[in-house]
């Protein structure tokens, strides 16, 4: 049913429909509306779950880790500094192969302190072994939660997942969202069946340490599971498409890319602005298209290479930067296109919540056409 909903509330509703048994979360802007909405549901008995009001994000994910190991479906949400505080636990959860799903309401990392949006937080956990899915709008942010649980909990995968969507731009914005019903959600996502759990009838030791004889193999196994998850994501997307008509089968999404000279590559809510700008540029006779990255981990290199095979240049919009190198998305694109002659130009853009308008996208494309790139876009040089 189509409803006008705040992004956070739509996500909370989807989480409720996934029937988490344990939620542990710590409040942080701009994630708060999600965990407040879930607390309301628990208080009103519309969500039957143990809700732990922990004393830090570090404990939030640690409690989720324990509950997941004990055989429950669990949920948390965080952002920015909160995710940074979880860093150690994030690696641990992935290494222990616990299928926890966590919403990341993307926000920049200090210093300087900023509550506004970019994607530095989740990107900084790039190598942690969590699946990373990015949403363009509130509908996608909502739907990706069902899909994330399905992929994460697959016994052939067993990896945790971030569902990332932009703080404020999506989380605090009202948009029409088509919510599926609880019955539909139950049909799509059956009750959690843990692969193994802490159980006195079948005692298992979890989280042992590995000597050099074993560590490499355990890391290999995680990487293999990450790679296998691409096919499981496609399958979960296909089921979702068949049941609800919305299409998330592909790890990337192309927009007017077929005959494009310039391809823009981006993740998250900026894609909406890019699409509008592309329509304008197309009307003006410029052949521009978009390649949206939906799954950053695992990274869909083959799909990227195929989608960008015919273009003359690639302009990557990175809402993050690996300081001293480039934006994380650009690095992946360059890797995917290695050996081809297509220039890849990187634009560090919109850090710390700087607004991006259609004219900015047009300017990026003009820059790319002139071969000007690998820069911070929109620098206010007058304050430097």
């Amino acid at each position, binding site marked *: 049913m189509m409803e006008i909903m705040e992004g956070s509330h739509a996500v909370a509703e989807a989480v409720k429909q996934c029937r988490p048994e344990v939620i542990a979360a710590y409040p942080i802007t701009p994630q708060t509306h999600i965990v407040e909405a879930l607390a309301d549901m628990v208080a009103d008995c519309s969500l039957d779950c143990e809700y732990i009001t922990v004393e830090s994000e570090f404990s939030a994910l640690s409690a989720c880790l324990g509950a997941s190991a004990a055989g429950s479906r669990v949920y948390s949400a965080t952002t920015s500094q909160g995710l940074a505080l979880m860093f150690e636990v994030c690696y641990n959860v992935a290494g222990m*192969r616990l299928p926890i799903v966590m919403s990341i309401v993307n926000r920049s990392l200090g210093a300087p302190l900023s509550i506004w949006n970019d994607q530095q937080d989740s990107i900084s956990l790039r190598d942690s072994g969590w699946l990373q899915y990015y949403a363009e709008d509130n509908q996608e942010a909502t739907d990706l939660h069902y899909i994330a649980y399905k992929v994460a909990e697959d016994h052939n995968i*067993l990896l945790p997942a971030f569902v990332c969507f932009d703080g404020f731009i999506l989380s605090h914005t009202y948009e029409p969202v088509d919510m599926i019903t609880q019955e539909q959600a139950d049909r799509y996502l059956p009750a959690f069946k843990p692969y193994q759990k802490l159980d006195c009838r079948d005692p*298992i030791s979890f989280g*042992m340490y590995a000597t050099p004889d074993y560590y490499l193999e355990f890391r290999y196994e995680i990487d293999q599971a990450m790679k296998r998850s691409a096919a499981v994501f496609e399958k979960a997307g296909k089921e979702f498409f068949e049941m609800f008509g919305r299409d998330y089968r592909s790890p990337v999404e192309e927009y007017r890319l077929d005959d494009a000279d310039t391809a823009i590559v981006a993740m998250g809510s900026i894609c909406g602005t890019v699409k509008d700008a592309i329509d304008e540029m197309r009307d003006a006779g410029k052949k521009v298209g978009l390649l949206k990255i939906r799954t950053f981990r695992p990274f869909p290199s083959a799909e990227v290479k195929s989608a960008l095979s015919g273009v003359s240049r690639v302009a990557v919009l990175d809402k993050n930067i690996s300081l001293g190198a480039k934006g994380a998305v650009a690095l992946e694109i360059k890797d995917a296109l290695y050996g081809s002659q297509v220039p890849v130009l990187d634009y560090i853009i919109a850090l710390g919540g700087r607004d991006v308008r259609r004219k900015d996208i047009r300017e990026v494309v003009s820059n790319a056409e002139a071969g000007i790139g690998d820069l911070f876009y929109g620098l206010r040089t007058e304050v430097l």
Partner: protein
Amino acid sequence: MALGVGCSARPGKARDNKTGSWRVFKPEFDHEKCSRCGLCSTICPEGCIRDDEEGLPVPDYDYCKGCGICAEECPSDAITMKQEEK
């Protein structure tokens, strides 16, 4: 053998590690002096002393590290530490 997912394992394999090879001194039990109080089997950090059906302590030398706590604490002085002969 497939790896335990997430570095997990079921019990049983610890016994593959025969810690008795660490031993320098070996406890010898004099059952004549033993009062069957059970203290040695209770306080052994290895848990490698068992009481037989008569309540007499029987060490498992596969695992005994020879720490000597049992000999030190035995109220009947029924345990003596002897240089290990290898």
